[in-house]
């Protein structure tokens, strides 16, 4: 790879770091572990930059590397208890004092109760704006599976947040 291509690749990776951190936090819940995940994904992306098909979606490519890293780590830690609880809630201290603060806190607590595969699908579709087909490719499963995960995640959030009750119509 030429120096210019390397410099461009480095710049593009750097621009993705905030999104990678948010995605990693959605998966792991623990901010320190999430940042370690981002670091690992950046190293792997760099080492494999020769295999990246130029012109294709770099964000999707690096996100896929990150989620695969997360999954293989999860398999290694199978016997450990997930320590996602508390970590997401702790990070709320810095969120600020918007009027919607409690609302947001409730949302994050509810989000944390979702299984990892549903959190992932919901974030990729609902927050990152990837298409269902793209997410299916990234996760190596059928489009219908992604749609079902997103629907289940939304259903559960609606139930937990009582959004489907008549009193909760106003935002």
């Amino acid at each position: 790879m030429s120096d210019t291509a390397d410099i461009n690749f480095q710049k593009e990776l750097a621009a993705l770091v905030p999104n990678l951190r948010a995605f990693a936090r959605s998966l792991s819940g623990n901010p320190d572990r999430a940042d370690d995940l981002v670091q690992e994904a950046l190293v792997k992306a760099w080492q494999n930059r020769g295999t990246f098909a130029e012109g294709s979606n770099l964000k999707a490519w690096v996100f896929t590397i990150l989620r695969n890293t997360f999954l293989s780590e999860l398999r290694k830690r199978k016997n450990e208890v997930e320590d996602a609880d508390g970590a997401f809630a702790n990070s709320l201290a810095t969120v600020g004092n918007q009027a919607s603060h409690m609302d947001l806190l409730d949302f994050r607590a509810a989000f944390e109760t979702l299984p990892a595969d549903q959190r992932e699908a919901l974030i990729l579709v609902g927050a990152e704006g990837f298409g269902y087909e793209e997410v299916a490719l990234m996760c190596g499963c059928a489009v219908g599976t992604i749609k079902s995960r997103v629907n289940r995640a939304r259903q559960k959030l609606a139930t937990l947040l009582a959004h489907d009750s008549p009193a909760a119509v106003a935002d």
Partner: protein
Amino acid sequence: MPEDDQRKVTNSSHRKVGDGLPDTPLPPHVQARIGRQLKRAYEDIIAEPLPDRFGTLLDELAKSAKRPGADS
């Protein structure tokens, strides 16, 4: 008729909260509200100040690529 109906009743009473009717779409205003909250929570994390470690890491990776043989 009685047997079939009884089985249905039994099955539906075992359905878990949040696990049922996965393909029934939510009312649009509910889905929109969840979408807004999701984006807000996600964007709050994106807007957090970046630790130095990532810039440092990328610089080191780029430097190592320039050393012959250091990056295969």
